[in-house]
C-alpha cells in the first residue's frame, strides 16, 4: 500500500514538474506570438466580401488573429498567415444577428406560467446549446442571438445575448434586456370562472388586465425601492437596462407610448405587426423596432393584425432603426427585399442593425478591424433564393461546414 502511495507521489511530482515546464514554455511561446503577430493569423479570401461597412470587396480578404478581425481589403499581404481560400464563387459576409430569438430555450425554460410578473427571471442557465433549434440557428447563419423569455408573462424576465456556436463561455450579454409583453399572450391561459382553485384563475384575461398588471408593477417598483423582484423595472425607468416590449396591434403599440409617458421609460418595440400604422410616432420618438416574421398564406396575422408585406420598407422610409428577426434570417431579408426594402437595408437588417439595437456593434454585425471574426460563407448573393449557407465561422474558427453536415 505504502509502495503504491510512494509511486503515486513520485509520479505526481513528475507530473507537476512536467506541467510547470510546459506551462512556462507555453507562456514563452505566447510571448513570441505576441512579438510576431502573423504567426497565428488566418487570411480568409473569397470572391466577394460583404463587409456591411462600405462597399463590398471583389475579391475580398479578411485577416484574422485570435478570433478578431485585424484588417480587411481587396489585396492583403499573406505574410506568415495561414491562407483559407474559399474560392471565387464564395461570398463572405458577417454572421447574422437575431435580436429576438428563443433558440435553445424549451417551453419549460422560457415560460413561467404561475405568475404574471417574473421580471428577475433569467434565461441564461436554461440555454441548451445542444438543442436542435440552436443548431438550426447556426446552420442558418445566425452566429449571435439575443435569447429572450417567452410571451406568457407580462414581465417575462431577462434576456441573454450569446454566440450560437459556443457554450457559456461565449455569452456576450448575460444580464440583458428586460422583456415585457404588452399583448394578449399573457391572457391565453388565464380564465375566470373555472374551478376556483385553478392556478389560472388570475388577471389578466384581456388587454385591460395586461395594462393594469404593467401599470401596477411599475407603480410598485417605484414605491418599494427594496423590492428586488421589481429591480429591473426601476432599471428600465432609470435607463440602465434595455427594455423589450412585445406588441403587435395598433392599440398595444399606442399603449406602449402611453405607458412610456406615464412612467418615463424608453423601450424597444418587438413584433410590431401593425407598426406600419404608427410610423410617424415611432420615427418621432426614435423607437428601435425588432420585427418578427410576416405570416403568409393567412388573411390576418397574430392577434388578428393587419398584414403589411412591406412593413420593413415602410419603417425604412420613415428613417426608423429596425431589424428583422426569425429562425431563418436570410429568408426574412429576402422577403423584405422582395416586398420593397432595398438590398443594402435588407442585409443591414439582419447584421449591423440588430447589433446596433442590442448595443453589441463593437463586437459583431460587420466585418471591420477589431470586431469578432464571425462570418458566414454563401455560394452566391445572400438575397438570391438559391444561395445557401456553406460555412459558418465564429471567432475565426470553422464551426459549420455544409460538406460535413447532414441536412
Amino acid at each position, binding site marked *: 500500500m505504502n509502495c503504491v502511495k510512494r509511486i503515486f507521489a513520485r509520479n505526481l511530482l513528475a507530473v507537476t514538474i512536467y506541467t510547470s515546464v510546459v506551462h512556462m514554455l507555453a507562456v514563452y511561446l505566447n510571448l513570441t506570438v505576441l512579438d510576431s503577430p502573423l504567426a497565428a493569423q488566418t487570411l480568409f479570401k473569397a470572391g466577394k466580401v460583404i463587409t456591411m461597412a462600405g462597399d463590398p470587396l471583389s475579391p475580398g480578404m479578411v485577416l484574422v488573429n485570435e478570433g478578431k478581425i485585424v484588417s480587411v481589403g481587396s489585396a492583403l499581404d499573406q505574410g506568415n498567415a495561414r491562407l483559407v481560400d474559399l474560392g471565387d464563387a464564395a461570398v463572405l459576409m458577417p454572421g447574422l444577428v437575431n435580436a429576438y430569438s428563443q433558440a435553445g430555450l424549451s417551453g419549460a425554460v422560457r415560460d413561467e406560467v404561475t405568475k404574471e410578473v417574473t421580471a428577475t427571471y433569467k434565461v441564461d442557465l436554461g440555454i441548451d446549446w445542444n438543442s436542435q433549434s440552436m443548431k438550426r440557428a447556426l446552420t442558418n447563419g445566425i452566429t449571435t442571438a439575443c435569447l429572450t423569455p417567452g410571451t406568457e408573462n407580462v414581465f417575462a424576465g431577462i434576456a441573454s445575448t450569446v454566440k450560437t456556436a459556443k457554450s457559456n463561455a461565449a455569452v456576450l450579454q448575460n444580464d440583458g434586456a428586460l422583456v415585457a409583453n404588452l399583448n394578449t399572450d399573457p391572457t391565453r391561459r388565464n380564465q375566470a370562472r373555472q374551478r*376556483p382553485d385553478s392556478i389560472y384563475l388570475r*388577471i389578466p384575461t384581456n388587454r*385591460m388586465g395586461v395594462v393594469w398588471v404593467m401599470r401596477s408593477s411599475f407603480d410598485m417598483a417605484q414605491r418599494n425601492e427594496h423590492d428586488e423582484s421589481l429591480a429591473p423595472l426601476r432599471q428600465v425607468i432609470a435607463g440602465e437596462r434595455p427594455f423589450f416590449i412585445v406588441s403587435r396591434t395598433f392599440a398595444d403599440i*399606442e399603449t406602449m407610448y402611453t405607458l412610456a409617458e406615464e412612467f418615463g421609460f424608453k423601450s424597444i418595440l418587438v413584433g410590431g405587426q401593425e407598426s406600419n400604422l404608427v410610423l410617424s410616432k415611432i420615427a418621432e420618438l426614435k423607437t428601435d423596432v425588432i420585427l418578427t416574421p410576416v405570416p403568409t398564406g393567412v388573411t390576418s396575422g397574430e392577434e388578428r393584425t*393587419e398584414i403589411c408585406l412591406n412593413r420593413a420598407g415602410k419603417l425604412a422610409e420613415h428613417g426608423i432603426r429596425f431589424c428583422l428577426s426569425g429562425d431563418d434570417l436570410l429568408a426574412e431579408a429576402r422577403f423584405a427585399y422582395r416586398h420593397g426594402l432595398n438590398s443594402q437595408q435588407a442585409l443591414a437588417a439582419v447584421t449591423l442593425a440588430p447589433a446596433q439595437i442590442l448595443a453589441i456593434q463593437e463586437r459583431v454585425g460587420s466585418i471591420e478591424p477589431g470586431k469578432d471574426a464571425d462570418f458566414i460563407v454563401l455560394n452566391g448573393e445572400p438575397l438570391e433564393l438559391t444561395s445557401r449557407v456553406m460555412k459558418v465561422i465564429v471567432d475565426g474558427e470553422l464551426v459549420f461546414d455544409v460538406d460535413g453536415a447532414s441536412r
Partner: protein
Amino acid sequence: MPENSLMWETRLAQRCKNGLAALLCCFVACQVQSLFAQEVIALKVGKIFTCAEDDAIPSFISDGVILIRDGKIEAIGNKHQIEIPDGYQVIEHLDGFAMPGLVEAHSHVGGTSDLNEMVYPTNPELRNWDQVIPHNRRLKVAIAGGITTICFIPGSGTNMGGFGTLMKTGPGTLNEVILKAPGVLKIAQAGNPERSTGEVGSGRMGMNYVIRQQLTEGQLYVRQWDDYERGQAPKPEVNLRLENFKPLFRREIPVAVHTQQYQVVMTTIRMLHDEFNLKILIDHGTFDAFHLGEEVAKRNIPAMIGPRGFWYERQVGQILGIVEQYEQRGVKVLGVNTDAPVVPQEELSFQATMAVRYGWDEERAIRGVTIEAAKALMIDDRVGSLEPGKDADIVISTGPIIDPRNYVTEVFINGRSVYDIKTHKRLF
C-alpha cells in the same frame, strides 16, 4: 384601422418617392398649407334642427348658415342674420337637413373587443382608453349612420367593469379622438355579473354588497384627497387602483349603470344616486323599470334606453314603448342606446325611430340621440347641439333622420368632412 394624419404623411412620402419629387412636393405642400388656411367653413343648409338649450338660438332654422372656425361652431342662424365673411369655404346643402352629430350612450365598438376582465367582481383599476382604435371599421360605418360621439365602455361581466372612454368616431390620433378619459365608470347590478364560482355575488344581495364595499373604499380615498387639498389633512399616498374614483366622487363623470327591471333600477337609484351621491345614467332601464319613471324624473336622472325598446304589459295586454313610458312619467334627460354591437352602431337613429313608432315625440327623439345623450354623459359643453363654441359635429341628411326613408349625405366631425356621399360610396 386609423386613417389619420399618419396615413396622410405616408401618402405624402409615397408621392415624393414616386419620382417628380421636388415639383410634386412643392405642390402637395401648397395644398396642405391651403387646407390649413381653409379651416373656416360656411355651411349653407335648407333646414337646421339645432337641439340648442340656449333660448337665443331657435330649435329650427330655415335657410340656415353655420360658420365653422378651427373645428368649432362660430355662428349659427338664418342667412339674413349671418353674413359669410370673405375667405370662408362655402359648402351648400340647400335641400339638406342639418342636425348635431348623434351621441351614443352605450357602445363597445370603439376599439379592441377586450370587454370583460372576469376574475374579480369589481375592477376600478381597469380602463379601456388603451384599447381605442380611432376610425375603426365599425366606426366608419357608424359615421355613415350619423354617429359622431360614442361612450365606449367595458362590458357587464362583472359588477364594476372599469372606466370607459368618451370618444369621437372620426379619424385622428388618440389624443384627437378621445373626448374624455376617464369618461364614465361602468357598473352592472344584475344579470350578467352574477357569479357561480363560489365567491360572493351569485345573487343581487351579494352583488350589491361587493359594489357598496368597493364604492366605500373609493369614497374614503377621494375624501382623504379632498381633505388634503382643502388643507385639512396630510397628503395621502397615491393608490393607482383607486385614482379614477376622484373624478367620479367629485361628480365630474357619471356612472353608466347596466341596470334593468323595476327592482334593480330601484337599487340603482337608492344606492348609487341617493346613498353615494354619484352622477349616474340608467344605461338600459328596460323591462318594467319605467314604472319608476317618477322616481327617476324627481331626481333628474338621465335614462338612455335600449337595446330593447318594448315591454309587454301583461295587466293591460299591450306592448308598450319603454321610452314613451318614461316620457309620460316626466323623465327629461331621455334617449336610446344600441349597446353596439348588440344592435349595430349605425342603427342608433333606428332605435329612436322605433321609440317614435311606439308613441315618443319625434322632436324629443332627435334630442334624445343628441343633446340629451350628451347631457347624460356630461359632455354637453362640447357636443350634442349646434351652438356657438361647441364642436362642429354636424350631420347633413335628406330630412329628419327619425324617418327611416331619409339618409345621411355628409358628416362633419370637428369641422372636418369625414363622410360625403358625393365622394365616398353611399353606405345606406
